[in-house]
């Protein structure tokens, strides 16, 4: 589904990605974990072409994405704590996104309903709290029923209730066979959802393993324990 072939990226004199080679098969739910500054966000950005790798290539559903843009219609991306144009209302942001993907007819408004976003559609983005903006981001990611979900620190800033709603939504989509990549620090919340783990450190992939393999290797149930054992 998504394969990154030996991609490397350098910002100035800092090597942020070093020969990163990962594979995401369809239907997988991958946890992208690692310490701060390990290159998780850059990897995600490379998949979305926000960052253009110095070498290597990204294969999306069998095709090199270099110079392509239409493939992103199949991706639902939820960025890490983002800001929106201050003077747009939530409703306007939604309608702008719908405007961009005019061809997409079946909209998934489940999350919008659960977060009761429509009631505050008239509010301007500039007046919203971080958590509220995060909810908007989550709704946008799921809105177009994408094949692949890329969620960057999805629960950061969300209250526990909203966080749980989001988690249930991810599980539901996983059950429908969607491919999901979640980057997160909070390992505990990933336990029930994921099928695979990619661990990154200093711009390199330390390992990519299925959860089952990890369990067998470490004889642990909790993801955080497994990781701790492997790293040690």
């Amino acid at each position, binding site marked *: 589904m998504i394969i990154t072939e030996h991609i490397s990226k350098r910002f100035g004199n800092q090597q942020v990605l070093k020969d990163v080679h990962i594979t995401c098969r369809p239907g997988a739910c991958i946890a992208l974990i690692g310490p701060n500054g390990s290159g998780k966000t850059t990897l995600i*950005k490379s998949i979305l072409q926000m960052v253009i790798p110095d070498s290597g290539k990204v294969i999306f559903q069998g095709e090199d994405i270099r110079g392509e843009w*239409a493939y992103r219609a199949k991706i639902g991306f939820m960025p890490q704590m*983002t800001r929106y144009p201050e*003077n747009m209302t939530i409703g306007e942001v939604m309608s*702008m996104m719908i405007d*961009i993907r005019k061809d997409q007819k079946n909209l998934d408004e489940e999350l919008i309903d659960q977060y009761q976003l429509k009631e505050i559609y008239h509010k301007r983005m500039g007046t919203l709290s971080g958590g509220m903006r995060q909810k908007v981001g989550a709704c946008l990611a799921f809105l177009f029923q994408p094949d692949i979900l890329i969620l960057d620190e999805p629960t950061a800033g969300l209250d526990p209730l909203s966080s749980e709603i989001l988690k249930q939504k991810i599980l539901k989509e996983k059950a429908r066979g969607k491919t999901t990549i979640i980057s997160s620090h909070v390992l505990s919340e990933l336990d029930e959802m994921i099928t695979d783990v990619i661990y990154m450190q200093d711009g390199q992939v330390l390992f990519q393993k299925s959860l089952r393999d990890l369990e067998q290797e470490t004889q642990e149930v909790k993801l955080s324990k497994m990781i701790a054992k492997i790293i040690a």
Partner: protein
Amino acid sequence: MNKIYKHVIADIIRNRIVIFYTLILLLASLSVFSLEDTSSKGLLSMLNIILMIVPLVCLIFSTIYMYNSSEFIELLLSQPLKRNTIWWSLFIGLITSLGLAFFVGAGLVILIFEPSFLGLMLDICGLLLTFIFTAIALLAAVLTKDKAKGIGLSIILWLFYAIIFDGIVLFMLFQWADYPIEKFMIVISMLNPIDLARILILMQMDVSALMGYTGAIFKDFFGTTGGILISFGTLMLWVIIPFACSLRYFKKKDL
């Protein structure tokens, strides 16, 4: 064709600074025209606003807007959109709203008080300078990663085009006073859009003085249809080239 520029315009038009800019322009233009006995003094004040304030506001506002929109740009980039489309939309959004702000705040007032070719020339030059300095701001923003550096670069660019460049030209004029450098000066003036706009307006405003002296040489160029077309062509290039450069750079930029 994607219509995100419509959404961008809708966002910028409601920006407090743009509204403030429009109101200040309106206040300034109405007061200079109604307080002065003759419209020519008002026009002179408007000329200074167009040559100084418009480039400054466009540069700084556009640079800040681009920095503040970096996350919004990221969000757009995660959508099935070409980078081209995104950059174009932001540019069209900015020039439409800033152009509209200029036209409502100053352009209309000028046309009401000076419904002549001179008034039209002031309006056209004001709009073109709006476009040019927005394009330059986009280039400044795309070239620098840091917001403070970007704003600093814009201010330096403004100082250069509005003041330093003229100082250098004046110095050259005194240095080479004994040489026939009129034609060379025409070429030099093309290198600064503010100067070019100023000379085009000068040709309408001070036509009597320009008929005399060396003025005739400038008049022979800037006063003819061909010269005016070349001048406007050059001003258009001043929009196109910085924007094209910023677009090229944006296509390769990591966000």
